[in-house]
């Protein structure tokens, strides 16, 4: 079972065209845990493809003219923490800072986070709130899939066997955005509940995404559209009753489970509190910046 080290996207396309028993290896922070604990097994006919050797997958393109941040799938968490990416997509940076430890953020990639399709994926939650899309590439061509439609359940996605994630296209949204999560400590935790909120006074849009409260990251559409109309964008305020209604809709769109990390009822409660605090914080921040 050899390991292939393609050094270009063209090479990668050809490898995926020729072979079907392929394991794409990015940061390895999830895959190796499975191998070490025996829940993932490699067979001798598997071909491991080392994505780290494809430098093109680590490019970052910040295009303020078309208001798009194009993040190569191989961009690592530590590269998302500060600088121009933090300015362009603050909630993505905030989510990156909550992922694992420095060691994990050195290895793990944004493409890997999307591909792994964990219901708790911190980066995915931010990307859904930002209405980002996944650019899937194969020898057949390229297609865009909204991040919110990419995962179909825990660890299952719409990716085809010959495709790979080339990049994530993240719209640059004016206004305020935030990501928040609850876990059992402040570092190194898989979230018990998480939420990302994007507030854009310019386009008068509120978008809410929820993590760890369903089989995939949830785009809370009913709550988002209610909030969009309920918020008075001229004064950056929302009535208490309307905010309570947003929280109610958030909780209705959640479908969490009981597991070793938390209970469904706690998650339902917590995710509402997170969204409420994020919206309050966001509106306060917008008001202060005017």
């Amino acid at each position, binding site marked *: 079972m050899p390991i292939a080290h393609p050094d270009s996207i063209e090479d990668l396309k050809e490898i995926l065209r020729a072979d079907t028993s392929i394991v794409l290896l990015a940061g390895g*922070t999830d895959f190796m845990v499975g191998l070490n604990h025996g829940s993932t097994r490699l067979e001798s006919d598997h071909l491991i493809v080392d994505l780290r050797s494809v430098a093109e997958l680590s490019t970052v393109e910040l295009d303020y003219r078309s208001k798009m941040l194009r993040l190569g799938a191989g961009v690592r968490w530590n590269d998302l923490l500060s600088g121009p990416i933090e300015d362009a997509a603050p909630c993505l940076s905030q989510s990156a800072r909550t992922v694992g430890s420095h060691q994990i953020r050195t290895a793990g990639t944004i493409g890997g986070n999307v591909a792994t399709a964990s219901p708790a994926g911190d980066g995915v939650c931010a990307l859904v709130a930002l209405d980002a899309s996944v650019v899937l590439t194969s020898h057949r061509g390229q297609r865009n899939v909204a991040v919110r439609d990419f995962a179909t359940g825990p660890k299952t996605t719409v990716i085809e066997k010959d495709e790979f994630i080339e990049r994530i296209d993240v719209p640059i949204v004016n206004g305020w955005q935030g990501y928040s999560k609850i876990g059992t400590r402040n570092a190194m935790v898989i979230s018990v509940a998480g939420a990302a909120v994007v507030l854009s006074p310019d386009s008068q849009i509120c978008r809410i995404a929820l993590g760890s409260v369903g089989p995939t990251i949830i785009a809370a559409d009913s709550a988002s559209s209610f909030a969009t109309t309920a918020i008075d964008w001229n004064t950056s305020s929302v009535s208490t009753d309307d905010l309570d209604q947003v929280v109610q809709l958030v909780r209705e769109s959640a479908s969490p489970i009981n597991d070793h990390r938390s209970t469904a009822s706690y998650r339902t409660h917590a995710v509402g509190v997170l969204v409420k605090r994020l919206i309050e914080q966001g509106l306060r921040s917008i008001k202060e910046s005017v």
Partner: protein
Amino acid sequence: MTYTSDEKHFELTVNGSKHQVKDSFLGASLLSVLRDHIGMTGSKGACEEGECGSCSVLLDGNLVCSCLVLAASVTQSSIVTIEGLGGATDVQQAFVECGAIQCGFCSPGLVMAATNLLDRNPDPDVDDVREALAGNLCRCTGYGRILDAVQVAVDGRKRNKL
């Protein structure tokens, strides 16, 4: 151009020297190869899921958990382990001076993480230190003396610069 490497027999560059690895098992982590094939037992294995940091090494200068690295995939990389620091660096001396060690199991990982922090950020505040060491668990010390030790190392480097 794509090149392929063998999963079971390969060569690693550790602390500046080449090491031949024979008959590693499918999917072996860098940690297990370092310990069981190369005989470098400084990097410790505990959780093998990236939670405890006791296996921390530098991979091309970046701090990673060696348990989460597929050994056969890093044949082109430069690996530095705790053995590569030599045993008497300023950070290691500071750990000794401050008594930042009890059972010692976490020490190699913590020394690697602290060394990497100081190389990235020569003037970390206490929050920077705590964040940089968040991925390294110690079950003995309660961390107080470890934080002291990092501060001693920071101060020492600043003094040497003056």
